[in-house]
């Protein structure tokens, strides 16, 4: 995974609460067996509407999504993260993420940063007034800046550390292989097994 320190880009406002992963990527697209190539699937049914924010000319090339509360609810499909990344997003800002979505984001290098709903609404206004405004998201400092606007964001410490270092989660766990083996010796014999 590539390390994530600072990202600067333009943003799109998504004025919706409870954006579930069925909206982010409908099930039809989950039949693919690759980890990439989901850009066409992102918000597939909303994108049929020419007025949908990501279809508007002023929001082309955005890399930051400013979303309403409870983003990423529903299914555990990590395809939702891949679709956002394939489309070009590096950061999602939201006041409340669903747990599994937030966890999945951290694995794949998409930054799910939590800021208060009032700050989301301020950013919506800023971005709508000037869609070309550059927004900087600094993971080291945990800060979002857009012109005069500045705000701290929350992110899990462990996820932040892994993102900053670009570390592979599995590699970290494998360093504990010995203790895993010891734990296995202590497991009760009545537990089910398919062996």
């Amino acid at each position, binding site marked *: 995974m590539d390390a994530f320190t600072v990202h600067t880009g333009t943003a799109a406002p998504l*004025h*919706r*609460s*409870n954006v*579930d992963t*069925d*909206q982010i990527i*409908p*099930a*039809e697209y*989950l*039949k*693919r*067996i*690759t*980890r990439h190539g989901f850009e066409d699937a992102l918000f597939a*049914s909303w994108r049929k509407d020419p007025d949908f924010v990501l279809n508007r000319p002023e929001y082309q090339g955005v890399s930051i999504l400013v979303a*309403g*509360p*409870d983003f990423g*609810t*529903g*299914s*555990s*499909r*990590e*395809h939702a*993260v891949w679709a956002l990344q394939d489309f070009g997003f590096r950061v999602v800002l939201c006041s*409340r993420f*669903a*747990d*599994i979505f937030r*966890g*999945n984001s951290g*694995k*794949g290098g998409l930054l799910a940063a939590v800021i208060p*709903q009032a700050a989301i609404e301020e950013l919506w206004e800023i971005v709508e007034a000037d869609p070309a405004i550059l927004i900087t998201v600094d993971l080291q400092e945990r800060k979002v800046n857009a012109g005069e606007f500045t705000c701290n964001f929350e992110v*899990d*410490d*462990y996820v932040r550390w892994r993102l900053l270092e670009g570390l592979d*989660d*599995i590699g*970290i*766990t*494998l360093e*504990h*292989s010995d*203790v*895993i083996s010891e*734990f*296995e010796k202590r*497991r*009760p*014999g*009545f*537990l*089910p*097994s*398919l*062996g």
Partner: protein
Amino acid sequence: MSRTLAEKVWSDHIIHEGEGLPDLLYIDLHLIHEVTSPQAFDGLRAAGRPLRRPDLTVATEDHNIPTFDVDKPIADPVSRIQVETLRENCKEFGVTLFPLGNVEQGIVHVVGPQMGLTQPGMTIVCGDSHTSTHGAFGALAFGIGTSEVEHVMATQALPLKPFKTMAINVEGALPEGVTAKDIILAVIAQIGTSGGQGYVLEYRGSAIKALSMEGRMTVCNMSIEAGARAGMIAPDSTTFDYIKGKPHAPYGKDWESAVSYWETLNTDPDAQFDREITIDASALRPFVTWGTNPGQGLPLDQVVPDPKAVSDPVERAAIENALAYMDLRPGQPLKEITVDTVFLGSCTNGRIEDLRAAAQVIKNRKVADGVRLLVVPGSTRVRIEAEAEGLDQVFLDAGAEWRGAGCSMCLAMNPDKLSPGERSASTSNRNFEGRQGPGGRTHLVSPEVAAATAVRGTLSAPTDLAEV
């Protein structure tokens, strides 16, 4: 120190803990299916890592597969490739797979319990958010993403931050015709779709104790719809009786050691939950959703809500969007909403008891003209059991379609889907926009309400039906 059920199971699985680090938790059972596993297997291959414990891993085919013509090759080539990829991966990595046509095949959350693989006190994960279902046995069970699927394949462990705990006390006796599904829909409507975020929910109280295992699974299944990753119910004699004699249940001396451990799995009397809510079961009525998230629900005898009555702008907009999508108007009685399709099935309500309850309602009655009723057993075993009891005939006589096992119309990734604008009453767990097919509209209901709705053609409870 006094501990909750969730804390007991958690601490019994800690492999390693470190200052400022998540706990490393051992995983007792890893369930996999065709949709969220291919990229994980690819990851293992790319890194040259083996799958650590094939004997603690089990796979089934459920999301993508058709529920008719199951003896023929899958018609959709993209689906076929995904299913074949699972078969090849399981072969390569030594994982037991229950493919289409096998008697153990079915929805992953129906298969685990029916084989006795789901037991109290275990940690169970699956690349599927409804893994919370298995918490009905007092297991700590939760859904994970594909990166975590790969993580568990490679290490049989997961780094996790402890969850907070919430007690959901459901006290009193459920009125006649009110079910486990109505309990959980009422819980979600009360705490909201994010109310459970960061928590393990423990369902407690006399109404929960009185539920069968099927009912408990229905409740725990939808914990994720309240934003919680897991729901749990302390195991008791109902749990033990259900497990006893199942293919993977312990037996002999092992059974005794298992039960004496399982009996310790309950929340200590003076343990503290981070949050606690209480629901009066005797005041519950059959529940139905009117909107596009599972928290947008009301008792069936109510009317569609009016967004103008809501002051919070975000919530008002959410209601307006939902009503526009659902094509409903404020004040419309829920019982006057007509449906085109009724779907009885899914990991929420596709178990034998659900089919029995619906059959009881529909027996000697007919599905309304112009309504299609799709009955889809949650697993092939459920199908066989239902057929042995003659339930298939009850449904067929009423004019329903009787199908093979799978996720079917719960999600639109196999041939069973709604067409744009079509409206359904569904016993599944998600009423999101397009969940059952692009443009489809979903009302979540219990099996009993589903059956009554099929007969009347409008959202209905069994008590609305004329005597036969």
